[in-house]
């Protein structure tokens, strides 16, 4: 049952990702991106990362996707016309060059995974030996809060300052120039 649900979520993710990159209509592709992000959040649940899954839904679906949709819909008619025009042409020349590159990259990745499968890293072997693998009964959120406030407090502060700088920079970049 668990395996079946995992396969369902992964097929949903890969199928909607393929649709996102193949649709011509940008608005429809962005709404399918929504489905993809929910499927990815479901996949994180199978890796026992429930807090990451909730953060994915809140940040991506609530923030990033709404931002993209607003940027798409606030842009004017010429931009939309431009998008429709340039995203057509299903068999333009670059795609013939891109598809072999992407497929060869996928083959390299799959080959690497296949080669790697036999070996287990030493830290993973010790974790399995010491029985410190995350179990489904663990209280993840409690542990994550403790880790954020003790061991990872410096990266946490740095990333929060970075996020604030990026948001201020974005709002500075996108303002209208009044004096020009």
């Amino acid at each position, binding site marked *: 049952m668990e395996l079946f649900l995992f396969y369902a979520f992964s097929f949903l993710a890969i199928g909607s990702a393929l649709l996102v*990159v193949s649709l011509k209509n940008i608005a429809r592709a962005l709404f399918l991106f929504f489905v993809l992000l929910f499927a990815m959040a479901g996949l994180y649940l199978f890796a026992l990362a429930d807090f990451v899954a909730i953060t994915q839904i809140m940040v991506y679906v609530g923030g990033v996707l709404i931002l993209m949709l607003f940027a798409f819909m606030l842009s004017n008619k010429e931009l939309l016309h431009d998008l429709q025009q340039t995203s057509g042409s299903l068999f333009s020349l670059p795609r013939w060059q891109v598809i072999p590159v992407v497929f060869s990259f996928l083959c390299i990745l799959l080959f690497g995974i296949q080669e790697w499968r036999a070996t287990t890293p030493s830290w993973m072997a010790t974790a399995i030996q010491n029985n410190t693998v995350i179990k489904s009964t663990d209280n993840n959120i409690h542990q994550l809060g403790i880790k954020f406030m003790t061991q990872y407090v410096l990266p946490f502060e740095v990333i929060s300052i970075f996020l604030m700088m990026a948001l201020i920079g974005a709002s500075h970049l996108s303002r209208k120039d009044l004096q020009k």
Partner: protein
Amino acid sequence: MITLTHFLVVSACIFCIGLYAVLAKKNAIMILVGIELMINAAILNFVAFGKYDQVNYGGQIFALFAIVLAAAAVAVGLAIVLNVYRHYKTINPDQIRELKD
């Protein structure tokens, strides 16, 4: 039983689809979507490996950091896209060659 290999294969597929979007798409918003797909694949790898790390919770914590980085990247990227459109009247990256007009 879901093994680590399942997660790695799914994340490889998502990463390659994102790479395709970055290389082949002709408008900047879809390229941003492709970058987000690649970041999502990386986060899936983080949490899949983080399952074996109960001592430090490194995988899940750095997955959260990567989500924050992606949010910052998309905010700045969309601001740049709107600004570029105002200057060049196009967001096709093939036709944008100089930074200053």
